[in-house]
């Protein structure tokens, strides 16, 4: 019998099993309840926001009103361009650097690697004051590149890809070199294809991180043309709308929808990607 189907002697049985399942279920319901509530409020008229009547009429009105009250289409476009731009740059820069760290011996290698690792702890997120000054000097304030630039070289990506490249058998590398392939050709033909699942994992983590990122975009943008969804949502919900929770819930769901749908469709890949990215 395989390890998978081998009975676990400590698997709960009888009453213990019932109790555990109940506990797990209750906690799950508690955990999902804010989202369930947001769905309720978003799909019902405002007078039912806190009146949970079974026969309350369903409506898409809140979504249309939210969509019309702020330039969400532009915010979606901005966020979409932003996360694509960041991940594309990260993939290129991190691949090149990871390859150097995984397969080259050169003076200053461990020092350079230590310099990269510094960013795992001191992330651009905490360097907002000085990075804002730099963006001012570069003329990148209030632009999508201004949001993206501090994140395009990611220590996390370098580390993750380096670990993956290290597992590629050296023999493949040597064989290709004997055939006369250049370092760049070897990288593109052997390492990158073999690391595909890691690119997917890194992509999911990077995209969800930057889709959700808020503080730096808030600081560095001040116009509709550059604002991503998170900043747009915050301005929308703290604005002069008056407090209409059903619209705010609709806007909240709208901004999270692409990630949420992606997660529900590809749950396993999402969980495994975050796991892979974290354990490295």
């Amino acid at each position: 019998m395989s390890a998978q189907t081998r009975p676990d002697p400590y698997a709960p049985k009888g009453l213990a099993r019932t109790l555990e399942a109940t506990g797990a279920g209750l906690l799950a319901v508690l955990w999902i309840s804010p989202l369930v509530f947001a769905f309720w409020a978003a799909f019902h008229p405002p007078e039912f926001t806190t009146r949970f009547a079974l026969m309350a009429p369903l409506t898409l009105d809140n979504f249309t009103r939210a969509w019309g009250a702020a330039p969400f289409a532009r915010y979606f476009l901005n966020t979409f361009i932003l996360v694509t731009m960041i991940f594309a740059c990260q993939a290129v820069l991190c691949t090149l650097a990871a390859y150097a760290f995984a397969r080259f011996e050169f003076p200053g290698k461990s020092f350079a690697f230590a310099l990269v690792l510094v960013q795992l702890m001191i992330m651009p997120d905490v360097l907002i004051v000085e990075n804002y000054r730099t963006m001012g000097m570069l003329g990148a304030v209030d632009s999508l590149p201004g949001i993206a630039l501090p994140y395009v070289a990611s220590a996390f990506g370098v580390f993750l890809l380096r670990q993956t490249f290290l597992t590629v058998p050296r023999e493949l590398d040597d064989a290709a070199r004997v055939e006369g392939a250049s370092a760049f050709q070897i990288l593109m033909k052997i390492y990158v294809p073999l690391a595909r699942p890691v690119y997917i994992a890194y992509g999911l983590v990077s995209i969800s991180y930057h889709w959700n990122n808020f503080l730096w975009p808030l600081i560095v943008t001040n116009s509709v043309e550059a604002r991503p969804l998170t900043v747009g949502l915050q301005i929308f919900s703290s604005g002069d709308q008056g407090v209409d929770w059903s619209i705010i819930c609709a806007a909240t769901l709208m901004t999270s929808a692409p990630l949420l749908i992606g997660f529900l469709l590809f749950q396993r890949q999402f969980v495994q990607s975050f796991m892979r990215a974290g354990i490295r």
Partner: protein
Amino acid sequence: MIRPASRALTAWLLLAPAMTFLFVFTHWPALASLMESFMSTARPRRPSRFVGMDNYQQALSDPVFWKSLTNNLWFALGTIPASIALALLMAIWVNDRLPGRTFARMAYFTPTILPMIAVANIWLFFFTPQYGLIEQIASALGLPSHNWLGSGDTALGAVIMVAIWKEAGFFMIFYLAALQAISPVLAEAANLEGASRWTYFRRVQFPLLMPTTLFVLINAVINAFRMVDHIIVMTRGGPDNATALLMFYIYQVGFNFWDTAYAAALTTILIVMLALIALLQYGWLERRVHYQ
């Protein structure tokens, strides 16, 4: 055979783009914060000048700085143990083949992928006085009304709750991976020896999960000093700085009061604290590499 010198050149060329960006947007701003922290903030007709330790002295005598630092420590103490314990419990429950485990895993993990800024809005509504969901439930049960985010006694607790809710499911997946990596032979052996489930957990599973716990712990500590999105949405540091965290205070000083030199000094203090945590992790990573 390619000469080592040309290999080294290729390596540096491969590294150059990433290193340039890292230098400009990580190393330089960290250094610049340190240098800037010894200067005064430039004002109209008063250019920036060297002031030595003045900004640090200002921090020492700034009650809001101390308040945000202690808040941050309480925030860390409130979120870290609770979210790690919950994460472990969730992982054990999802790992046991209980009915509905797929739903449970989905429910626990969902907060991780939602934007903090979005979910903070939903929580803000829960905590709203009079009209909010918690108030309505409390009044239905005949409990006295309470302004959760508006009162200094409960505001920090409320934002801690949101942080726990957001993080526990993320940490769960690491425990889940680690639990699934434990050989079932160990459970069989422990069972033959007559160990109870609790003993098996305490003597076998928990020690084997130690590297995971350490990893999660370090992540949780960094997050505790980095998370500010929900503060900006829910309380803006209030009432009376009861929920001001260090990173939020830096944001306020730097971008509301525009006192960039003082913000640089505060950033330097935060970097030093993060660097101490980094040293801790570096020691641990080193050890971990040796097991492999």
